[in-house]
């Protein structure tokens, strides 16, 4: 071992000894307060990021589980724009043969004006919404609308004449824009639909769906069979195919495979299809980063003040240590170690608060947002970011005041001149 290394170990051992003695013989209430403050700073770092994660996770889940699944296949756009995907049966069979594909469904998309005479007095309420034709048997394998029927029941069989209304269309179910709804359609009542191609039909409301996500609660569902008669298309065509896979995150591989099967179709990942998810994730990541930076700065300033006050109070002792021949670096390291001690115990306490109190609380009492119920989504790397961020803040905040105090003239430090 070199002399330099031996000296370093000697200095570190002495710094540890001084730091340890300072902590165990210091005021217990002050130490407890410092650790508590730092634990709050840590909780703040993780909590804000986790809430924002919770929002994006909920939005993503809503989109994947209740809207477009993982992969969306649209009709050919180049060189000519087609209205429908053809040979859907073969294509879906091919896709479903890929390992990890849970299921595929065909959607038939239309736009219609819905009309409803609530009081049967000739005064109609109406509005234009998206209508999707779905296979009631297959659809639950890919999207979860059937699990979110809040009144009545889901579509059954291949029968026509039935419709499921999204809660924001039906009204009276706490829509964001209640005035745009039909004003309170009940299960069993009739609504009239005027489709874009001129077809007009009456449907009986079989159920009301509500996933608590405005983009989805503004859609009405009819059976695929019914949709095909309105669109006047043969069985092997569809407006859209949705693909559900077993693991979110592996979409790119499947997209590549599907593009090989049908090079002309437009194949997109759910994030590209619904730009709201990507935009929100980006925005929340930015907000999270800014809040984390502010949180870390506050934590750093807190540690700085605590260590600074500590160092100022021990100015005379620092002077004495220097006078008897203790190196400045040893003194500085002892203060950094103290700051790290407070930070480590603050982090441990913070982790206990988060995982044993905050997270269970939000699981039992989720926050109600227009995108769904939000709970904390704690990501490992963000916890680690918080841990290392706070340790770095503690290091810097311990270093600066200790360095200033240790650099002071010995006599000034001892006599406070």
């Amino acid at each position, binding site marked *: 071992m070199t002399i330099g290394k*031996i000296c370093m170990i000697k200095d570190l051992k002495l710094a540890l000894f001084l730091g340890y003695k300072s902590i165990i013989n210091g005021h217990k209430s002050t130490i407890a307060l410092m650790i508590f403050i730092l634990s709050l700073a840590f909780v703040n770092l993780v909590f804000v990021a986790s809430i924002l994660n919770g929002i994006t996770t909920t939005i993503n889940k809503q989109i994947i589980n209740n809207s477009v699944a993982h992969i969306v296949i649209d009709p050919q756009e180049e060189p000519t724009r087609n209205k429908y995907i053809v040979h859907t049966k073969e294509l879906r069979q091919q896709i479903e043969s890929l390992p990890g594909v849970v299921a595929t469904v065909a959607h038939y998309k239309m736009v219609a004006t819905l009309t409803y005479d609530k009081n049967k007095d000739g005064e109609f309420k109406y509005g234009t919404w998206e209508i999707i034709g779905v296979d009631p048997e297959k659809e639950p394998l890919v999207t979860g609308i059937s699990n979110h029927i809040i009144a009545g029941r889901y579509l059954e069989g291949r029968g026509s004449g039935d419709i499921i209304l999204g809660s924001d269309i039906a009204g009276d179910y706490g829509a964001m824009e209640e005035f745009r709804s039909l004003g309170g359609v009940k299960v069993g009542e009739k609504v009239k639909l005027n489709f874009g191609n001129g077809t007009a039909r009456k449907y009986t409301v079989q159920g009301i769906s509500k996933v608590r996500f405005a983009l989805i609660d503004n859609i009405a569902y009819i059976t695929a069979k019914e949709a095909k008669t309105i669109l006047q298309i043969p069985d092997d065509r569809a407006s859209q195919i949705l693909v559900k896979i077993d693991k979110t995150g592996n979409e790119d591989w499947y997209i590549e495979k599907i593009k090989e099967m049908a090079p002309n179709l437009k194949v997109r990942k759910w994030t590209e299809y619904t730009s709201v998810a990507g935009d929100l994730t980006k925005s929340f990541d930015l907000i999270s980063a800014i809040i984390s930076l502010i949180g870390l700065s506050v934590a750093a300033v807190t540690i700085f003040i605590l260590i600074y006050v500590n160092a100022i109070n021990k100015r*005379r002792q620092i002077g004495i240590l220097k006078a008897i021949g*203790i190196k400045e670096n040893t003194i500085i390291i002892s203060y950094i170690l103290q700051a790290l001690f407070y930070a480590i115990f603050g982090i441990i306490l913070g982790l206990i608060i988060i995982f044993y109190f905050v997270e269970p609380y939000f699981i039992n009492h989720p926050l109600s947002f227009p995108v769904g119920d939000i709970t904390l989504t704690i990501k490992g790397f963000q916890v680690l970011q918080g841990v290392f961020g706070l340790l770095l803040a503690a290091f810097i905040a311990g270093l600066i005041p200790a360095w200033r105090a240790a650099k002071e003239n*010995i006599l000034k430090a001892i006599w406070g001149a």
Partner: protein
Amino acid sequence: MSIDIEVKNLKKTYPGRVPTHALKGVTFDIKEAEYGAIMGKSGSGKSTLLHQLGLLDTPTEGALLINDIEVSKLKDHEKTLFRLQRLGYVFQEYALILELTAVENVLLPAFALNGSQRSYKERAIEMLDKVGLKERADHRPCELSGGEQQRVAIARALINNPKILFADEPMANLDTSSSKQILELFQKLNKELGQTIVMVTHEPDDQKYVDRVIWIKDGLIEKRSAS
């Protein structure tokens, strides 16, 4: 007998709107195993002189040699190591680390020099025994009297076997009985162990314990007794 400390035309000026010339050119030497006292009235410059000798401050001009090394030219970190290895310093106000026990205070310089506290604990207790405080080894400074604290400080100053021991009015805050104990302890260390001691005091009665006195007045040596 060789010379331990050689002071040549040492000057110290504190800057300010009106600079204070605390030392105006002091020249003397202290021999090995000598017990010297620096005496003078308050504000005469005696403590300033001891601070320069103990490497706690840097002289403005002149040369200071300790064991033939020109210490006034050493860098800060070299001075720190020099203090640790070769000098012991006893302050007027005990200057103990409040969070450490008596024995931990004493072994601190040994720990800093050798990197081990366990192996020097025995020696620290031995040093405390020398100053008559073995039984109080595990007491913290707040549990000790002024005289006891000062004796702990002396034990701490001696643990690394320093070549020279400096003491800055070590009896200033002590009662007569404690002061006598300290002076006798210094005398014993000097006579029995051959410890070089330089002590600042303003008490004329202390002269009888020392080998030589250097009187300082207005930053200059006023007179010196023969060694």
